Each structure stands twice: as C-alpha cells, then as structure tokens.
C-alpha cells in the first residue's frame, strides 16, 4: 500500500484573504516555517493546528485538508 499524503488548499484560502504566510502564522500562533511546511506538504499538522487554521480562515476543515 502506498503512503498516503495530505492534500491542502491552505495556500488558496490564504491568498483569498490576501494573507502572507507570516500573517497567517501569527494568527494561528505558529511560525511562518510551519505554514510553509504545511503548504508544501513537508509537514502534517496536528489536529489542534488544523482546527486553529480552519477557525482563522473561516473554512471547514474538510475544505482545507483532504487525503
């Protein structure tokens, strides 16, 4: 079985709100590196961070992340 990867539309929703990675990071209480790592698929965020991002962007979790 192949390794599953997490797909994300974080970048799209961030751009929609005209936010930089640093802005979104500050709003979610993490660093720009974390946002960058999630957007480029290098990191799978924790449930807590996923919920924070969903709340900050005003987008349901299932719209932000999918398998």
């Amino acid at each position: 079985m192949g390794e599953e990867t997490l797909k994300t539309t974080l970048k799209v929703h961030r751009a929609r709100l005209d936010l930089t990675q640093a802005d979104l990071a500050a709003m979610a209480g993490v660093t720009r590196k974390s946002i960058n790592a999630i957007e480029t698929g290098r990191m799978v965020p924790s449930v807590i961070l996923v919920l924070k991002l969903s709340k900050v962007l005003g987008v349901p979790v299932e719209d932000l992340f999918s398998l």
Partner: protein
Amino acid sequence: MDASLPERTEIFIRYIRGSLYLSLACLAVATAALAALALDGDGTWAPAVTRFLVTPFPLLPVLMAAGVALNMRQLKGQRFRREDPALRAVLEDEQRREAFHRAFRAAFVTTLVAQFPLGALFTWRPGIRLAPGGDLLLLGPVFMGAFTLVVGLVSLIGFFLFFDRD
C-alpha cells in the same frame, strides 16, 4: 518602534538560530582543546597542537563576547517575555518541535555509531595515578565519555539547524 507580531517572530527565530551557531563555534573550540589533550600520547606532536590552541587563547573570551554582542543585535531591542505571543509561537511551533524530534533521533544514532571509532581511538590510552599509590584512573573511558558528550551535543545542534532550515 514596535515591531509587528510576524516581525517579532522572525527576530526571535533568527536570534535563537544565531545562538545555536554560536554554541556550535564554542563547542568546536572545546572539541579542539579536548582532542589535543586526548591525543597527547607520548607528546611527540601534541605540543605543537596545544601551542596552536593556547596562543590565541586570551583572545577567545573577547571573540565569544563579540559573537554574543553581535547576536544580541539581532534582537533589535526585543525582550524575552513569556507572555509575548511571538515568543510563544516560536517555542511552541510544531515545525520546530518536529525538527527537534528528528534531530534528537539522528543525534542518538550518530552518538551510538560514534562509540566504535571513539573506542578504537582511546582504548590504547594508559591509565594515570592522580596521587602516588592512588587509584589508577583509566583515561580511555574518561575521554570516550567526554567525546560522547561533545559528539551528542554537536550532532543535536547541527541536525536541528539542518532540519529547521528554511
């Protein structure tokens, strides 16, 4: 002028990374001194090495202070306050935590593997008596322990800086 939250976060990240690079530099000097001491052997070539290290020694504290001062400039007047959201974001950042965990695993394996060359390098060291008739102090295990500590610290900091890079 007050920096914005994202700017403060970047300032703290740069400062912490700078501090870690500085620690690596200090560890490099300590490692060189330790290596000169450990490889002294019959003293045929060690004096040259120790002279090389001892000659600039008075300058080392000055260099270290200069490095710390240079790194402090990166803070741009920011202070470490526990309640600062920028500092909390840096300390509780998931990507950095993951980088630390990866670095810890890599450093553990490196330290474990390093035991073989360290063992081969230091088993030939004869023991010394600190006082006439006193207990024999085996230098091999002492140097192995010291180098294990150094290898562990250097690899942990080095791997963290690598995994935490942009």
